[in-house]
């Protein structure tokens, strides 16, 4: 079935929002919600409701709308607000307790054992456990490092794309990625050591 919906007139909508048109503001939120919620879900800090964080991002967007000059596409500009808001929340949350083997579920422990001792790929049916494990491991990193690794290794974004999203320069992103992967490597080694003992 062909999609009969006309394309969303973002420029027109922004003009109407600037003239305090509430209907246009609502349309803008509905249009951008999928973009914002995907970012929120990827970088959601612990104990923060995704809807609350999305609302905070949209309110920031409306407050700063006068600052938008059109140098970058509007969705990119909103993405950056979303990412920096998530980072601020991640920085504000307290550090997680030490990561221990005993805290893992049976399937997570199995996957971890598998990746540490086996050079083969993880079986596809262990994908969900791997996903959970990855998030537990990432939570051990500093928020900025966490963000870079998520974007680079999970969302497979390029360094240039990450630079655009975060506003950080490419060298800084490379340094953060290197540091984060080294920390993850260290975590694996520590876990291996504790498991053996």
């Amino acid at each position, binding site marked *: 079935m062909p999609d009969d919906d006309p394309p969303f007139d973002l420029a027109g909508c922004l003009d109407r929002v600037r003239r305090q048109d509430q209907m246009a503001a609502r349309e803008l939120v509905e249009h951008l*919600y999928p973009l914002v919620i995907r970012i929120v879900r990827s970088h959601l800090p612990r104990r923060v409701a995704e809807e609350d964080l999305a609302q905070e991002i949209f309110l920031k967007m409306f407050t700063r709308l006068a600052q938008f000059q059109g140098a970058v596409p509007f969705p990119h500009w909103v993405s950056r607000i979303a990412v920096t808001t998530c980072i601020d929340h991640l920085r504000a949350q307290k550090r997680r307790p030490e990561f221990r083997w005993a805290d893992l579920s049976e399937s997570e422990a199995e996957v971890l054992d598998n*990746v540490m001792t086996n050079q083969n790929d993880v079986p596809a049916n262990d994908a969900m456990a791997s996903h959970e494990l990855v998030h537990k491991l990432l939570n051990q990193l500093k928020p900025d490092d966490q963000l870079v690794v998520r974007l680079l*290794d999970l969302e497979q974004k390029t360094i240039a794309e990450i630079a655009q999203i975060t506003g950080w320069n490419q060298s800084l992103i490379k340094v953060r990625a290197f540091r984060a992967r080294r920390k*993850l490597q260290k975590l*694996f080694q520590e876990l291996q050591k504790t498991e053996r003992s």
Partner: protein
Amino acid sequence: MNLNERTTPWSRLAAAARLVTDDRDTAAPYGFATRVAALALAQERKVVSLFERFAFRALGAAFLMAVLSVAANYSVLSPSPALAEDELIEDDAVAVLLDA
């Protein structure tokens, strides 16, 4: 460190984690957009009205201070008929000297 080579435990784990797709709905929940739009526009109005309120208060305070200062210095500002020219001369040493 090239992740595509899957040489490290992390790279193998990340590759497996990427197989999980997020199937959750990405449409805005019912009422979300209306609430956020109303809050956003109300926020802007609040900022404007806050400015207006402070501006009016400042104007009121300035007017009151002007009235008070005029009232406090009224006696100096108004011409006093009781003050005779002679009295003024008496106080003026130069005038006394010239009169003599």
